[in-house]
């Protein structure tokens, strides 16, 4: 590939070593995401999926290795600065603020992207999540788990991101609601937004993501397309216990 053809990756992480105090969590994780791509992070609990996301976003800065977002180094940058480069982060646990309404949640963080565009207007978010429209004036804490998750995703979309990071977005939800969330993830993908997804539903991940990274004890044991995982089912069997 010549320099002219080269597109700057959205995220480029090289050799991340991250620690929580003295415990060494990530052992040299590499990750590259191009604009518009969908990437899944696979692995059992405690293998470093969330830590990888937190390292990329600067919440737990890596001790070694480097992260570049849109080509810019993230060293000594605060998470909010990285977020403003065009990332919508939906962390585990939804994070709905009690006492403020659905509408207020969708207004509180809304901001045009770096190019000054705001494709994700309140109306568009409400079109995407009709359930939120029905509950627009309800207190955020009175919503069901699925609705809270939708609100959390909808709120991240109001930042008009180029990249959405979804950490366990379907965890603990009823199957029907889960399907709805997966449908929305497909819609987000179709709109051209790149996505990093951490989830336990392998089938859905294989369907939506082009790229997969499998983490075991903080190390990448598989990185590549879905075909590789389908061709060699022992990988998933060994490391996730699924066929």
């Amino acid at each position, binding site marked *: 590939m010549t320099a002219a053809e080269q597109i700057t990756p959205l995220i480029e992480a090289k050799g991340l070593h991250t620690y929580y105090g003295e415990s060494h969590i990530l052992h040299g994780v590499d990750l590259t995401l191009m604009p518009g791509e969908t990437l899944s992070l696979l692995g059992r609990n405690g293998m470093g999926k969330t830590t990888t996301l937190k390292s990329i976003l600067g*919440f737990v800065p890596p001790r070694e290795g480097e992260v570049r977002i849109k080509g810019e180094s993230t060293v000594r940058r*605060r*998470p*909010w600065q990285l977020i403003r480069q065009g990332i919508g982060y939906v*962390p585990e646990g939804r994070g709905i603020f009690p006492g*403020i309404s659905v509408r207020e949640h969708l207004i*509180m963080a809304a901001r045009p992207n770096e190019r000054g565009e705001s494709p994700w207007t309140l109306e568009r978010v409400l079109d995407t999540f009709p359930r939120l429209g029905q509950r627009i004036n309800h207190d955020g804490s009175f919503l069901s788990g699925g609705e809270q998750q939708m609100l959390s995703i909808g709120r991240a979309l109001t*930042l008009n991101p180029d990249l959405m990071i979804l950490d366990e977005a379907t965890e603990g939800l009823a199957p029907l609601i889960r399907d709805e969330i997966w449908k929305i993830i497909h819609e987000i993908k179709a709109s051209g937004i790149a996505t990093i997804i951490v989830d336990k539903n392998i089938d859905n991940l294989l369907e939506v993501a082009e790229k997969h990274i499998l983490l075991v004890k903080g190390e990448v044991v598989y990185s590549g397309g879905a075909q590789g995982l389908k061709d060699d089912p022992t990988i998933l069997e060994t490391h996730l216990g699924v066929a």
Partner: protein
Amino acid sequence: MLHRYPKRVSIIMLVLTALVALFPLWGPALFGARSDFVLEQLTLMLILALFAMSLDLLVGVVGLVSLGHALFFGLGAYTLALASPDFSPASLWWMLPLVMLVSAVVALVVGFLVIRTKGIFFIMTTLAFGQMLYYLVSTSPYTGGTDGVFIMFRPSVAVGDTLLLDMDNPLTFFYFCLGTLIVGYVFLRWLTRSYYGQVLDGIHDNEHRMEALGYATASYKLIAFVIAGVMAAIAGMLAAMQYGFANPAQLGWHTSGEVLMMVILGGMGTIFGPILGAFAFEILLHTYEHLTTHWPILMGITIILAVLILPKGIAGLIIAPPGRDALMKSPLLRWFNRRGQAGSAAVKSSKPAAKSSKPAAQSKEG
């Protein structure tokens, strides 16, 4: 927490304000010759209320527990004392902006450093900065060492040559402090309900989440730290005017601890709670001081009981008067209950009596 309170909060606060404001009318009748002394104490309580309220912005609203807030209280006092001329009153028109400016600059520097820490580390670093200034002023010859600095004349409030407010008149000074407290209260109420205040609430709830939404949380916290510092310095300046001197004790950890107790006693994060807390704390203090020389023991027990019985402080009691169910959940009452049940089945007769006690109305607004 949206800082919207039931109507009775405003009513109670207005009644109490009126009661305090009208003290010159009913005070002499109740206290007789001691009325002047009581007025002085009331003035001090108003000043401490302003001080406690400023700390509440940090502790209750943002969730930053500072054990060095007296730094700014003392800084306000010393700024006034050192800047006042020896043989004539200073002008408050100059002193107030000077105190605000000095405290804002110091708060900006200290805040810039301490805001990076969280939890216990925030407590320790604020304590450290407080103690640094404490030792600086108590050893420096320029600040009079442990004797402090005396203020010979209270600053004057004049326009041209006409004296607007005679601060040496205790009654005028009392109303001046009351006015400052009311202005401070209205300001903080407005602030906590503004957009900025809502972000502070968000940071209190979950700082990571606010950062994940693109908010520069550190700047928001730093601004809160500066606002709280400036308000505390104004309170310190008023205290120095009241006492007539600035003393190292005003900025020691002891003062920081006391004001923290006022905030906890009054109810954190409510802004009006710490005002009540300051009054309650001072009234308790005077009561206990008259009872015994070992009053700190009584004070300590009271604070512990208050935290056990009223975890949300006096303000919590007003915002949501506890129902019977809530009362029964209090650890202390549970302990009493268990003791009672274990103690005897013979006192069964007391049970129906307890049941008949009227359950307080459960508030919907809480």
